[in-house]
């Protein structure tokens, strides 16, 4: 067995047979369930998670314990726990590895979370492409049920908790929690008006907590070892570890679990072994495609929520996309915006029309048909989308444009003037354009 890949979630991740309940248990899994369920008062569980400072790992970074505490107490309605396994943010693939290799930890996290705020039913919403992971999960759920950990009378107590899996149909928007709930109910996957927030009126108009896979998988450790143990990693406001999905021309791309607050440069140089083929970092998109990029000059930024905000970007889902100096920013941005145009659900005007229009302009710029006022127009359109769309998808499309224009305006201007890229690698962008 090689050295552990990470301090917490990745400590045993590569253990052979971890998807089976026996191996998971041999490593200490499910030990927390009998110590918490029916024993530790739910309020105390919520307080413990609050004290740990655990923040949502899906992208928004909302304090998890606080979210749970919004669920009304003493309501006659059923409460639901929904695990968001719709990991669709470009550049992000951490939940996929966690689900693939360690499904029981998610089940354990869901049991404990459900106990904490009183849910008796849980749903795991997988993105459509995760069909194989749904099967892995279903096997794990069946094992857990046989072990008395799922279903009625969990661990011999009166607490009942059932887990269902659901496969989406391939829409990025269904990672947005209210769109996910609409999709789970069988409706068109489109976001709903907030308020009411899901904690008050969510799935089937009942109190619902939606948590990300990685978030829920942090819960067993916190309830087993306590908040102080969790706080041994990370910063004051961003405690714990974070799994970062690194892509781009680094030597060791892939998922890395790091303590929060680690400088971006350390991640790239030490965890990923630096750049390959002598390439240099031009920019990094630190938190999945929806966040503004950071230029190479800002690689000292810490990988935590506050440090990223201070630099005008976000830690997001932890999808670190490294862009090298041979990549054209206009091309990269065009690629991104095409994604958002394709994935815009169409509900609100700014996102539906704005992503389409921006994609048209970027296509023109990239292929040498850009006009003098296109760059300013692009900036203005991004501004007209940002903060005016129904949900964050519009913002997600606008922010990368703003980030790219802030740091690499010259590349856009060059595209307009020279009708070609600053970098030479993308020769196809010159096709059909006379020299």
């Amino acid at each position: 067995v090689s050295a552990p890949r990470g301090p917490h979630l990745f400590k045993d991740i590569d253990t052979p047979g971890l998807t089976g309940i026996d191996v998971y248990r041999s490593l200490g899994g499910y030990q927390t369930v009998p110590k918490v369920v029916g024993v530790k008062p739910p309020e105390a569980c919520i307080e413990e998670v609050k004290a740990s400072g655990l923040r949502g790992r899906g992208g928004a970074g909302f304090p998890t314990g606080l979210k749970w505490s919004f669920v009304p107490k003493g309501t006659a309605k059923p409460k639901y726990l929904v695990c968001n396994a719709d990991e669709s943010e470009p550049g992000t693939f951490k939940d996929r590895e966690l689900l693939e290799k360690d499904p029981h930890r998610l089940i354990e996290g869901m049991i404990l979370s459900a106990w904490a705020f009183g849910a008796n039913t849980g749903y795991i919403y997988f993105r459509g492409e995760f069909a194989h992971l749904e099967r892995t999960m279903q096997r794990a759920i069946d094992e857990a049920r046989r072990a008395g950990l799922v279903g009625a009378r969990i661990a011999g107590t009166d607490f009942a908790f059932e887990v269902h899996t659901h496969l989406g149909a391939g829409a990025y928007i269904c990672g947005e929690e209210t769109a996910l709930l609409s999709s789970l109910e069988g409706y068109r996957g489109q976001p709903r008006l907030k308020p009411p927030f899901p904690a008050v009126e969510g799935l089937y108009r009942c109190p619902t907590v939606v948590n990300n896979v990685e978030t829920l998988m942090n819960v067993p450790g916190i309830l087993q070892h306590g908040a102080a143990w969790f706080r041994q990693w990370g910063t004051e406001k961003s405690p714990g570890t974070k799994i970062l999905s690194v892509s781009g021309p680094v030597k060791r791309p892939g998922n890395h679990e790091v303590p929060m607050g680690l400088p971006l440069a350390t991640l790239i140089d030490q965890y990923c072994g630096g750049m390959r083929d002598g390439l240099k970092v031009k920019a990094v998109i630190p938190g999945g495609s929806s966040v503004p990029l950071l230029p190479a000059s800002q690689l000292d930024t810490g990988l935590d929520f506050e440090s990223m905000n201070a630099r005008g970007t976000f830690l997001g889902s932890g999808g670190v996309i490294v862009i090298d100096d041979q990549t054209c920013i206009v091309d990269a941005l065009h690629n991104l915006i095409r994604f958002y145009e394709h994935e815009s659900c169409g509900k609100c005007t700014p996102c539906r029309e704005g992503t389409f229009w921006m994609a048209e302009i970027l296509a023109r710029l990239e292929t040498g048909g850009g006009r003098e006022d296109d760059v300013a127009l692009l900036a203005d359109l991004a501004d007209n989308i940002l903060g005016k769309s129904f949900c964050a998808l519009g913002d997600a499309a606008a922010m990368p444009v703003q980030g790219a224009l802030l740091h690499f305006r010259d590349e856009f201007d060059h595209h307009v003037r020279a009708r070609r890229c600053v970098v030479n690698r993308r020769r196809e962008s010159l096709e059909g354009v006379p020299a």
Partner: protein
Amino acid sequence: MSAPAPQQVRVTIDGRTVEVPAGTLVTDAAKHAQVHIPIFCSHEKLPPLGACRICVVEIGTPKRNRDGTPVLAADGSPEIAWMPKPQTACTTTVTDGMVVATITPGAVKARQGVMEFLLVNHPLDCPVCDEGGECQLQDLAFAFGHDASRMSDAKRTFVSEDLGPVVKKEANRCIVCMRCVRYCDEVMGEDALTAHQRGVHTEISSFNRQPLECEQCGNCVEVCPVGALTALPYRFKARPWDLRQHVTICPWCSNGCSVRLGVRGMEILRARGTEQRGINHEFLCVRGRFGYEFVASPERLSTPLLRLGGGGLQPAGFDEAVTFAAGELQAIARRHGPSSIAFLGGEKLNVEEQYLFQKLARAVLGTNHVDARTRFTAPVPGDAILRATGGGRAPLSFESLAHADHVLVLGDDLQGEGPLAQAVLVRAQHQQGTHVTVAHPRQVKLARPKFGGTWLPVQPGGEVAFVNGLTRAVRDAGLPDDLPAATAAALRALALPELAAAAGACGVAAGALAAAGTRLARAARGAIVFGRAYTEHPEAPALLQAIENLAWACGAITADASRVMYVGPQNDSQGALDMGLVPDHLPGYLPVADASARAGYERAWGGTLDGAPGMSAPEILRAAAEGKVRALWIASDHWLASAPDRTLAEQALAKAELVIVNELFLTDTARAAHVVFPVAAFAEKEGVTVNCERRLQRTARALSPRRGVKSDGDVFQAVARALGATWSYRGPEDVYREIARLVPGYHDTGWATMLPLGPQWRFEHAPRAARLEPATDGRPAAGEGHWLLAGGVLFLQGSLAHRTTLLPKLAKAPRAYVNAAEARSLGVTDGEPLVIAGPAGELTLPVAFDDAVPAGCVFVPYAQAGVALNRLGAPAGAGLRVRLSAAAAVAKA
């Protein structure tokens, strides 16, 4: 029972401070402040959506200290914490001290940005777009848009689609506001439209991109803020600014929707809802929206017709026809006495005309044989419906029906009989969780499981037992606390069947009766709706008594208010009752037999009135068939179609010495007449009609009648004068003034108060005391054969539907409907002819399968082309048993 008034809050919008109830949306508060905030996706009948984003504004709330007091600036004004992003006004509710800005640079840029996005893929085809000139997008582009487009790339395009004979879709113009989809689902309960694809490729269509299979109401076209959904009948017909707009009242049913007619020259080109006006606002059903065609039909009668000396009908002058009619009436009255004359029909007339019709009969000719209720099969006292609907207590409105927590629909299929009432209930179910209990032998639309209500499949013939059983269940669950002691005692003493016995007689399980009774008893704002299925029933007097018992028992009638609604078969069925078009009551429900009541009218009208109540419509029918009634005047009623027994009606028309008919068309009834007066259609005359919520509403004259065509009122006056009466009404307003002076319930009402919405009827007299008596079904329980279920359907409301081109096209070909198992046992398959034999005659119709029809029954819609149900014998459509057989078997035998 009313909720406490919500707290008032102060909100400042663009510097104007207004006070509105807490919970008001910013868009609505802005209207109070007279600030215009544009909207597209928002609609008053749909919950907030917040999708189009055109209503973005900047919103701030007062900063608060820790103790909750507002933070004050140096000048003493509260400091405002502005929200970091613009907010949608259509989804934000006001809070006290809120400040809204629509004209700050941030708000203006946000709105202009959205406006520009809306136009990115919107075509520049305004000059050929039906919506052009009244398009909200066009107006807003003018108000907030850029003067030049920054969009130079190719637009995303779709192909246009025909979605059936009513809706044509131009998807390129669509701004994806989802109003049509949501209205179709939440208000119409049809769910016929959906969005395909996503993002910029989102396209509204039917689910399978096939023609819409729905009510074809066209409300999707109405609520479309742009020209994406257009109405095929109006497409490319006119520019809106070329149309004169007249708001009048729809003639197609008793709901009384306001309808805005678009008229060019002498032609109605379209009918639309009225936006914020009337009881219906934008809503219209398919008949109201597209049924206006009959007004311009070339088949309309335009000259009086006379049958002189046993020949055929010949055109005649109006004066000639009047003189002839008056002379003949006078002669018959002289020869056989006034009681040999009977007046029938008039449910479609305005109240002024109804009033004159009975005044002509009673005061000028001296007969009390007056009855508008030509479809009734049993003699029903003229005030029986008044009693069942609360005896003069404050009537139920659509507004309060919309806020009911439980509604019992007795016997009627509201899809055909009252589309607005159905839409009100669908929306209440969808948006407020109102529970609707439908008692109907067929599983009609409102009884479908998707609405979450209860369907009680009452066996035909078991109606009285059903209502009695339900009353028993309500009483068992507990009578209302606030019942007057005497009423409660009477209800407790009332003989009502055991649930098991009632269940055996009506086919609804005792458990279901008990559950429904508990629901009725527990409802805080329960309502009851009934209609022609019960009033045209052979046991109508018992049924109306049973409804009165039930209504008191469940609290739908209280000491001062009624929550029982009668949905009559015609637009002014209620007015006919109010105006005394019944044999036993003078206008205002004053009994004919009451000398003091008569005295009032005698003073006003001059002369003496006959104190003996006349014959009711079914009695007139029999008497006329036997030759005892010599003269019949039938006003705006196709009697051969509406009378419960056509054979008898034919005999009556053949035997009568004089038949006068007021008609729009040369119907079979008119063909049998001696005098035919062509009369004005609904859009060609003014007057007042009374809808099913007893609201007085004024109709407007949008068109002049053609030369030679008079209003019914003018005909009555001309004949009255020829008979020597000194009537001198200059028009309906004069008549109405007399009504307002004389008729209880109409005092202190005037024309001026009835536009656009009149008051609901108020009875100045003490309301009728509760009369709680056992209601018993006098008919034998056993019988042979299948029950004939008849009923109104949406596309065919009476004979006028066949005078349009669209409605018969939408209606299915004439069919008799049985469920599949029934058809198998009869040995017929889909489309094969089925012989329906009644006591007086038989019909052969192709059969169609419909599992909503219960076993042992056959359903035949009224008014199908060439299908005279009343051929089968009385009482057609209300409890008649028929023999069914496959046509082939008959041929073999």
